[in-house]
């Protein structure tokens, strides 16, 4: 006889062998079960027990993997139900078998012996034979006889399943020795400790090289251990008091002392999931204390996050009373997390961030109006990242993802960007991200503002907001100071001449340009939210000036999206009573549009100029002469010539031609103040325009189009000739001549 050392005890099961072994075992079981049932039908109990014993003998094997063993176990225990039902039936009919409990203990091998004992014991309990308390104690103690981890775990699981409905669940014993809930608690806790012990021991069985396989097998069996906790949660008589004083301390004692990472991780999670949230609130400190004592290999952060999320959900659920005010939940978790971070120097940055994110979720969920809580968490995150020496956050890293999640939480849960602006530590954290992610979060914020119609009512806040999303506003390094220097100058849209983006013809790829367009149009739409309210025109103007100043730093590519909204928005606010203000506004628009023109966006500029003209036209002033005269001559003239200039710069010749021709009207019906309300009727200028238009038309390649243009020109000429009927002068004659020459061409 040789001493059995562990490495010889259990050789690794090979898969093909497993199938064969399992099949063989299953066929034996089926055969013996059949025989057992036949004997029961004939009321031959002793023979039936013999077959049952044979069947149970298959569970003595050392050769099956846990998965295969489980399958075998399920089939056998199914069959054992028949035996149990038969016995129950016999007992209830008064045909008690004498000393059955003692009888089954004569089975030769311990596995069949104990399975039979459990089955008979439960029958005795259900039929009130002997003391329930004694039987339960006997069974849970007897199971100690099987110390083999796999077999022991399944045996104790059988015990747990069979006794499911017979555990006493009352505070006081109902009859003598029928047991109370204390006995049930003792029963389950003992079963739990023994099972945990066996489960932990499994890792030491077999050769070192099989360690990973064994760990996987342990994971497959975790539910067997967890069922004990479930059973405890099903005992209704256990209240918060008993949970706190008896149940939890015993469970935590096992968890902490087993020092096994797998067990600790699972059991702690199990506790959180299985017991009600009120219990967790009442035992928070004990639980968190245990967390601090766990094996370093346990991912404590997951456990904490689980708990925090559960309690957040509990507090914010409909109909819940929330967190009792005497429990400073935020402080508890804040401290606990700080402790963990301190004790784990190897905590990765993304784990740090995900912990803080959970805490943020708690703050936002449970303490919605405590902005300071959120700010504090952000501050801790920032300094934590500093301590870990995190400088550059790679765009596709886990850290980036976690940080993004964290930053989106306040956006989603407050739905009020203005609050974000008040948090001192939000922007520093956002700026840590890499450009694409940063832009993504910024865009998310802007979209949130649009969805919620969040207005930005002050210049200061506009500045703060645009600073927050500065990655969208301008390329890094764009000199905001230079742009700010000429805040009211007309040509302040310098952009960044160095990178060619000011030309609007930068070499970006198709996708880049699309992305940029999307970003900027988002930004542009947000400009419309910069609104102080209907009566505060002064402030409103200030707000828009600030916006323009900052947005200007974005450079040509961006400006074409962001400045037009500024222009439109400012126009909407023109209050006809405030003539001077109005003028300022139009000057502002004008300079903006000039800037745009400078950036070679003539189309846009032209549109805006014409638009501007229309708006001015539409404003119902009290005095007619102020129409179009809010521009003093010195302003109107540049407007006119700029328009013409812009018109001639349009892309296509036909467009140019038409546009210049349209400009003729400016020189005709424009009413500068000097003329006191009379139309300008500058025939000379009109003629010039039309001639120019004619020249442009002649440059058109397409004969048909040319013809069309000329025809239109003839119309213009005729109109003006008719209008100018009565005006003498060479200009008039020149006009008429031109008409004939043009029609000649046609």
């Amino acid at each position, binding site marked *: 006889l040789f*001493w059995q050392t*562990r490495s010889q005890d259990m050789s690794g099961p090979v898969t093909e062998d497993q199938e064969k072994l399992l099949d063989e075992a299953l066929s034996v079981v089926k055969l013996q079960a059949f025989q057992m049932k036949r004997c029961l039908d004939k009321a031959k109990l002793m023979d039936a027990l013999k077959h049952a014993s044979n069947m149970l003998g298959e569970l003595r094997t050392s050769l099956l993997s846990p998965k295969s063993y489980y399958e075998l176990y399920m089939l056998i225990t199914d069959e054992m139900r028949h035996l149990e039902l038969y016995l129950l039936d016999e007992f209830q009919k008064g045909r008690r078998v004498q000393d059955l409990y003692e009888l089954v203990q004569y089975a030769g091998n311990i596995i069949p012996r104990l399975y039979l004992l459990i089955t008979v014991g439960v029958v005795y309990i259900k039929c009130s034979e002997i003391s329930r308390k004694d039987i339960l104690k006997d069974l849970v103690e007897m199971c100690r006889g099987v110390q083999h981890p796999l077999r022991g775990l399944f045996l104790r699981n059988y015990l747990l399943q069979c006794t499911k409905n017979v555990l006493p669940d009352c505070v006081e014993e109902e009859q003598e020795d029928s047991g109370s809930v204390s006995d049930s608690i003792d029963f389950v806790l003992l079963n739990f400790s023994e099972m945990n012990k066996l489960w932990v021991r499994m890792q030491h069985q077999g050769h070192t090289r099989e360690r990973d396989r064994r760990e996987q097998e342990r994971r497959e069996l975790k539910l067997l251990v967890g069922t004990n906790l479930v059973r405890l949660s099903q005992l209704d008589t256990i209240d918060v008091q008993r949970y706190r004083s008896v149940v939890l301390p015993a469970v935590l004692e096992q968890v902490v002392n087993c020092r096994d990472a797998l067990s600790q991780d699972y059991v702690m999670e199990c506790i959180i999931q299985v017991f009600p949230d009120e219990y967790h609130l009442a035992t928070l400190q004990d639980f968190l204390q245990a967390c601090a004592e766990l094996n370093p290999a346990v991912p404590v952060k997951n456990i904490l996050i689980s708990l925090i999320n559960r309690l957040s959900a509990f507090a914010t659920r409909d109909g819940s009373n929330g967190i009792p005010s005497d429990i400073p939940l935020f402080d508890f978790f804040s401290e606990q997390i700080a402790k963990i971070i301190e004790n784990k120097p190897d905590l990765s940055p993304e784990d740090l961030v995900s912990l803080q994110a959970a805490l943020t979720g708690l703050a936002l969920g449970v303490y919605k109006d405590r902005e300071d809580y959120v700010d504090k968490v952000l501050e801790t995150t920032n300094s934590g990242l500093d301590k870990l020496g995190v400088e550059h956050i790679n765009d596709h890293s886990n850290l980036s993802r976690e940080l993004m999640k964290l930053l989106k939480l306040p956006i989603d849960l407050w739905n009020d960007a203005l609050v974000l602006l008040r948090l001192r530590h939000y922007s520093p954290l956002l700026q840590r991200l890499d450009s694409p992610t940063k832009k993504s979060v910024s865009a998310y914020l802007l979209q949130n503002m649009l969805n919620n119609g969040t207005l930005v009512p002050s210049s200061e806040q506009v500045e703060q907001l645009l600073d927050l999303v500065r990655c969208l506003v301008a390329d890094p390094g764009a000199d905001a100071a230079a742009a700010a220097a000429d805040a009211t100058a007309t040509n302040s849209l310098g952009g960044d001449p160095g990178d060619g983006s000011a030309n609007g013809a930068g070499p970006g790829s198709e996708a880049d340009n699309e992305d940029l367009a999307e970003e900027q149009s988002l930004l542009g739409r947000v400009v419309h939210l910069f609104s102080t309210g209907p009566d505060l025109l002064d402030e409103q103007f200030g707000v828009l000036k600030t916006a323009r100043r900052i947005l200007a730093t974005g450079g040509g590519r961006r400006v074409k999206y962001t400045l037009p909204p500024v222009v439109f928005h400012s126009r909407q606010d023109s209050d006809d009573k405030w003539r001077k203000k109005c003028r300022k506004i139009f000057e502002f628009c004008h300079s903006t549009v000039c800037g745009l023109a400078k950036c070679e966006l003539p189309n846009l500029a032209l549109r805006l100029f014409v638009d501007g003209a229309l708006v001015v036209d539409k404003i119902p002033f009290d005095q007619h002469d102020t129409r179009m005269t809010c521009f003093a001559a010195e302003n109107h003239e540049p407007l006119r010539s700029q328009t013409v200039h812009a018109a001639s710069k349009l892309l296509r010749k036909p467009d140019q031609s038409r546009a210049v021709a349209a400009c003729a009207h400016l020189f005709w019906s424009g009413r500068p103040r000097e003329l006191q309300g009379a139309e300008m009727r500058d025939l000379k200028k009109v003629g010039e325009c039309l001639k120019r238009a004619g020249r442009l038309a002649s440059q058109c390649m397409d004969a048909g189009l040319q013809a069309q243009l000329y025809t239109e020109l003839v119309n213009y000429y005729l109109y003006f000739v008719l209008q100018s009927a009565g005006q003498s002068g060479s200009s008039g004659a020149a006009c008429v001549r031109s008409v004939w020459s043009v029609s000649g061409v046609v």
Partner: protein
Amino acid sequence: MSNQQQQQQQPSATQRLQPKKQTMEDAYSPPANFLEIDVCNPETHGLNKDRYTDYEIRLRTNLPVFKLKESSVRRRYSDFEWLRAELERDSKIVVPKLPGKALKLQLPFRGGDGRFDDEFIEERRKGLEEFINKVAGHPLAQNEKCLHMFLQEQTIDKAYVPGKVRTT
């Protein structure tokens, strides 16, 4: 009366015994019977007629009787034969058999590498591993100096003084 009292105080034969509660230490410590010996990394040394193969004997244990909890030595087949002979003489155990000698393979006209053939070496390795694990696991063998020298000393001193290991 005193008899009655005595009877009442005397425990009945079938009374439940209260087991002493197991300490956490006992419950959760790794079991103290860990002994793992691998016979691996066969290497053939030397040239032509003087060639021989030896194997790495790698041991890991937590048994108190072994001085080193981890050890690695190289041994050849003849060393195993020596160990077997020593144990048979001095210890009371029935020593298991070694895997076969390669006599048949060493005949001159036989093809292949003979006793340096890979397949043969692998078979022999398995046999030696089985042998040494069985032997080293036996408490009576664990008492013998020769076993410890075989497993944990770099060289075997065949001129040693045989004897029992003193338990500390």
